[in-house]
């Protein structure tokens, strides 16, 4: 917005005045808000509800701030002394009646309680008050609030806001809100109705479509019905296309989570042939590393919290990588060529690790926070996409690409491939195979740890975290073809998307069963998976 601060202040004052004029033509004064504030002292939902309405209509310049604070439990009261204090998000205090700042918090204050009904009313009221706010995000929220409340009194301000809006996203939201208000008016003329319906279809979401449907059921005029029905058909067509796109997106997202969990196993199981039942616990340890790092950040550098994941990533890789090397040196290296014993031993290791974490951290879930850039959603052609999921997909791709690079383009990767393809010949060429074994296992475990950092963002961090991924991980690796990274990639994405297309029809439980059955049938037909390795490596 090219407005200078003074102009903005003016606009804000204008807004208060406008709000006062269009809502009621009551004298603007201190008494109105005083009476409303007195209601808050009762701390009863009915009184608070009435107070919200009165504060919104009072025309007081602090009205929006007070209402916002009320919704956030930042309005503090003391019924005995009739004190009402508004706390700002930064912690500074203000007397609600006079607007004067208060230096220190008086004792004995308690927040005014709210419930969903009160908060809903507050959202609607703030929507009416902040439609002209200089902050685009606030205007967007206001437009959505008016869309929900469908408050006809907001129409004049809505028109005014629409006329001067520059931001296309906010403009669309305002148009949608205006159309929703118009649509509730049963006397609306046909041209206006057509325009309103067009705006709603343009918005394209299911809620807007629901409004048109509701209008259709209450309308008898055949011409209007036709107009509405055509619009609904158009909207539904769009919804269907969106549903397919959404399923693909959800599938990719699930697939990336599967891939992330399985990719470390693709190395330890796929490349080395070790059935590592403790793989899930490496993921879990990665998640706990993230938690520990975040705790340190919370304690020592709360301002840099958004960087906690960046610090946790290399640390998780190191921690789980080293534990992996220790497991390989201490246990697995004695058991090469004895898959059953390896399976049992690593299963035992997994139980030990779980219980160790349970003893050290307690059995309850740990809260891992999301940095700001990973929360919220954005709109892509009507598809609402969560930033968190988006980053996880990108992260998975980066991890996958780096792993390919390590295997294909570094000396370590070359030696790894040599050892797994023909151990004795590699040894004859001077490669220290035992060292390579340990490093390979460490790499697989380290990547599982990195996966844990990402999964801590979407799943719960508890000692059981790993268990829920171990079966899925084996499924992905076996389906993709043991020993083939690209196979793992394709199989994870395929399983993710297939799951998401089955889920809407079959339900989550049946979808999972169906996928398993299909997988078993497939393995019967092709025991080596999608992309079977050919040649001597298979026999080794």
């Amino acid at each position, binding site marked *: 917005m090219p407005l200078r601060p003074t102009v903005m202040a003016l606009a804000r004052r204008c807004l208060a005045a406008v709000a006062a004029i269009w809502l009621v033509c009551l004298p603007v004064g201190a008494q109105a808000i005083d009476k409303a504030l007195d209601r808050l002292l009762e701390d009863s939902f009915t009184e608070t509800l009435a107070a919200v309405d009165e504060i919104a209509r009072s025309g007081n310049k602090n009205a929006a701030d007070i209402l916002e604070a009320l919704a956030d*439990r930042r309005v503090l009261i003391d019924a005995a002394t009739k004190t009402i204090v508004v706390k700002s998000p930064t912690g500074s205090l203000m007397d609600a009646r006079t607007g004067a700042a208060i230096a220190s918090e008086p004792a004995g204050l308690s927040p005014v309680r709210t*419930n969903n009904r009160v908060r809903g009313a507050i959202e609607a009221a703030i929507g009416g008050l902040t439609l002209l706010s200089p902050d685009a995000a606030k205007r967007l929220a206001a437009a959505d609030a008016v869309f929900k409340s469908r408050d006809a009194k907001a129409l004049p301000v809505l028109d005014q806001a629409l006329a001067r809006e520059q931001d296309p996203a906010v403009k669309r939201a305002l148009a949608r809100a205006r159309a929703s208000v118009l649509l509730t008016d049963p006397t609306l003329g046909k041209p206006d109705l057509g325009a309103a319906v067009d705006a709603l279809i343009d918005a394209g979401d299911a809620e807007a479509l629901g409004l048109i449907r509701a209008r259709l059921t209450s309308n008898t005029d055949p011409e209007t019905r036709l107009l509405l029905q055509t619009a609904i058909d158009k909207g539904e067509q769009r919804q269907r296309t969106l549903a397919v796109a959404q399923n693909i997106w959800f599938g990719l997202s699930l697939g990336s989570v599967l891939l992330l969990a399985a990719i470390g196993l693709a190395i330890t199981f796929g490349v080395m042939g070790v059935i590592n039942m403790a793989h899930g616990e490496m993921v879990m340890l990665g998640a706990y590393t993230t938690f520990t790092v975040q705790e340190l950040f919370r304690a020592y550098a709360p301002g840099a919290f958004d960087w906690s994941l960046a610090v946790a990533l290399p640390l998780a890789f190191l921690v789980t990588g080293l534990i992996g090397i220790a497991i390989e040196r201490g246990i697995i290296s004695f058991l090469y060529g004895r898959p059953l014993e390896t399976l049992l031993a690593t299963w035992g290791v997994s139980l030990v690790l779980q219980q160790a974490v*349970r003893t050290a951290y*307690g059995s*309850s*879930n740990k*809260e891992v926070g999301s940095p700001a850039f990973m929360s919220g959603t954005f709109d892509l052609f009507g598809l*609402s996409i969560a930033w968190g999921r988006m980053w996880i997909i990108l992260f998975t791709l980066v991890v996958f690409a780096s792993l390919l690079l390590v295997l294909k383009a570094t000396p370590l990767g070359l030696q790894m491939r040599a050892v797994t393809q023909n151990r004795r010949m590699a040894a004859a060429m001077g490669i220290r195979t035992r060292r390579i074994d340990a490093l390979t296992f460490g790499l697989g475990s380290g990547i599982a740890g990195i996966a844990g950092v990402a999964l801590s963002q979407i799943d719960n961090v508890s000692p059981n975290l790993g268990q829920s991924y171990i079966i899925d991980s084996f499924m992905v690796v076996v389906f993709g073809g043991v020993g083939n990274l690209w196979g793992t990639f394709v199989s994870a994405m395929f399983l993710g998307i297939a799951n998401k297309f089955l889920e809407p029809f079959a339900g*989550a439980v049946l979808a999972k069963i169906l996928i398993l059955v299909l997988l078993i049938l497939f393995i019967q037909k092709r025991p080596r998976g999608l992309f079977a390795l050919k040649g001597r490596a298979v026999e080794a």
Partner: protein
Amino acid sequence: MHVSRRRILAGASLLAASAFAGPAAAQDTIRVGILHSLSGTMAISETTLKDVMLMLIEEQNKKGGLLGKKLEAVVVDPASNWPLFAEKARELITAQKVSAVFGCWTSVSRKSVLPVFKELNSILFYPVQYEGEESERNVFYTGAAPNQQAIPAVDYLMSKDGGEVKRWVLAGTDYVYPRTTNKILEAYLLAKGVKKEDIMINYTPFGHSDWQTIVSDIKKFGSAGKKTAVVSTINGDANVPFYKELANAGIKATDIPVVAFSVGEEELAGVDTKNLVGHLAAWNYFQSVKSPVNDKFIASWKAFTKNPKRVTNDPMEAHVIGFEMWVKAVEKAKSVEPDKVIDAIVGVEVPNLTGGTSKMLPNHHITKPVMIGEIRADGQFDVVWQTKGLVPGDAWSDFLDGSKDLEADWVGKKCGNWNTKLNKCGS
């Protein structure tokens, strides 16, 4: 794979048991069994209950014990393994000679130990809200029956303060508790005039972690222009990703409130609750309830665990009530003999932590207040509604065919499923 794991566990516990049972303890103490999983999936919830029992027993001993003897806690770990629950229960009763057992969380673990308690005639105190449709002579249900949690929660959502909800999503984990509860709720909603197409029922596997499709379905279901709410019987670990996805999808409590029956203060400890403000839970106890007994309990719990951040929850309160009731019944019967305690305990009244007095009923359920709480940004709950008085627990739901004619009465009729129509014991 599972077999081998079980064998390992069973072997380990056998070793532990033989080490324990070695010197036959002289009965100069009264032994109390604690049967909660300390490892495996359910450890997350049950470990806390073991700790609270240890604290209660310690406090009772400080007060001079019971019948002039000290109480002694016997802790076993059934490791979230349902058949192992039965084995461990048998060990507690026969080898450890405990006078009463406090334990179990999931309904399937309770069902697994029932035959053992009946056969050996001992006493189990079960502290968790459950699906009802059961009343056994040897079991005392101190958690909520459906009429003490689910039905009042739905009533609240239908009221003006609750948002006058017209469309319902019943979402649950796929096992006996959610299935039975949802069956009762569906029958109740249909009886209240809700149309069939306004009810959506959805089940997910244990530990479900990818909620994208279901949350987007809920969002779509809620956009039909009628006020929509989700009634969640989702259990355990699946809750955290479910709430994370709700927040991701931008579903606010003012749009589509979610009322949960298995989410309390402990479960919320793992979630960032800033985006969940206003979602609801129905319980008989919340930590935030202001009462002198509750303040005292919270303080001693924090002191006992040496952790000022530890939270309290509803099943903990149920154990507090159950333990107090058992103590009073033993004092009344002047004996720890199960038969005498079972007869003495009905009618016993003890103060609950929310300021009322709970009473053991002839159907072996208790009276409790029902409260609806809204999640606050700090992970605690604000009580926004509560029943005027205490609600007596009803073992057999009045809204299911085949169950509405049944009554449980262990005093007059000596029967857990008395058919009032046929006037005989048994359905």
